[in-house]
């Protein structure tokens, strides 16, 4: 008897569902709002003078848990903009086919040179397309909108709360900078 009652309840539930609107988001036609820190790919950035930010320090290569970053360092030379000596990367390859998108490389970057991008909608048809060469990384700077995080922002979230005179206000100061409002998904 109990089984019969349960069967009838199951039938009633499914019948009710038939008249409910579908919850499906029809993906390519309709894109759900994505969080500000949604991240799918990488870009290397230039500074305001048009010089490469990456100094080839290998920090990202060393921290990468899946070891997908391979950097060839260039010898130090004088910057054309500031005139000071600094490092450069001769080659920078990031293989996203094994990337776990942990964003650690972004976090350790001392010059905020590498960021992750929000552009999601282009699956590739060849594995080679998943390997981001230096040209692709610099092309992504302009081609794809960046995610919220960069090295400075991420390290700022990790800092110990500043010592205040009144211990009561400690909690307020410790709160990390509020993230920006969720950006509308691209297009």
């Amino acid at each position: 008897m109990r089984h019969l009652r349960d069967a009838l309840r199951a039938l009633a539930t499914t019948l009710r569902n038939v008249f409910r609107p579908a919850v499906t988001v029809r993906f390519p036609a309709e894109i759900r709002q994505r969080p500000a820190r949604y991240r799918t790919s990488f870009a290397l950035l230039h500074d305001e003078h048009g010089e490469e930010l990456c100094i080839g320090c290998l920090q990202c290569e060393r921290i990468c848990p899946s070891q997908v970053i391979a950097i060839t360092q260039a010898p130090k030379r004088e910057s054309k903009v500031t005139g000071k000596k600094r490092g450069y990367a001769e080659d920078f390859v990031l293989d996203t086919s094994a990337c776990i998108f942990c964003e650690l490389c972004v976090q350790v970057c001392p010059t905020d040179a590498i960021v992750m991008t929000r552009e999601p909608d282009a699956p590739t048809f060849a594995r080679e397309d998943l390997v981001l060469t230096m040209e692709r990384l610099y092309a992504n700077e302009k081609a794809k909108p960046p995610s919220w995080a960069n090295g400075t922002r991420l390290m700022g979230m990790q800092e110990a709360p500043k010592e205040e005179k009144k211990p009561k206000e400690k909690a307020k100061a410790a709160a990390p900078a509020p993230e920006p409002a969720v950006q509308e998904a691209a297009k």
Partner: protein
Amino acid sequence: MSALWHGALYGVAIVSVMLAITAVGLWFERKFAARMQTRVGPSLVGPAGLLQPIADVVKLLQKEDIVPAQADRPLFDLAPVLAALCAIGVAAVLPLSPDVIAADLDVGLLYVLALGALTTIAIFLAGWASNNKFALLGGMRSIAQAISYEVPMVLAAMVPAILAGSLSISDIVRWQADHHMFALWPIVPGLPAFLLFFLALLAESNRIPFDIPEAESELVAGVTTEYTGMKFTLFYLAEYVHTLVGSAVASALFLGGWDGPVAPGLHWMVAKTLVLFAAVYWVRWSLLRFRSDQLLAMCWRWLVPLSVLLVLAAAVLVQLFPGVL
């Protein structure tokens, strides 16, 4: 000669109509299932996804035809054809309207039940010929299930036969058109017999909650495990046609078939069939699968005694209280 023409014409008409309805039924099931799960369902191929079954079949036809090395080749090839034939063949004695019936057999009901039972042979052939443990287990479960559920199904089908005093399906429908449909009156053998027949129909066509011959979690795909391409399509087709034809038989036996006000008979027959067809899928997407022993216990301990009582009630009614009818 004219009888041959008659048969050939009806054969072509029935087969093409059955296949067309099955295609729409496939689309309907996927849409219906999607709605029950608050999804959208097929929507990209054609308007509202209506061409999805055609895309499915084209995909299946393109598949490679794989035959296991140790398979019993003649039986392996025969089984899907036999399954599809048995399923479609039942349609021959269905009265679609007062005048449209391919073969008005005196023992139409017997023919329907016999052909329905023959499907089990095809399924077991497939299980045996595949030389695969899952397929064989599926075939054996199918036989166990069919033997059990054949009994209440036949007994439930006897109720309208006794009440109408005929084994001819068109006579049974005509009796209902003259009086009333059996599912409504006499309510005591009528309605329970209808429900019992519907339940046995689910078991006959291997639908949830009785789909243990092809329980995915235990037997991969049961008897169809080794089948690909066109042969698999035939099994798939047989299953859908079986459900469709079974719904038609149930609506003819218990719901009055083509009998109904205003609209022509064919419309009523199709409408009643489709309502039952939809009910099968409603049950399919709502309930869970029985265990094998639960299935058999329910059949032999409850359904068989109940169906015997119903047949007895129908006989008593006809003999002692003919005025009630």
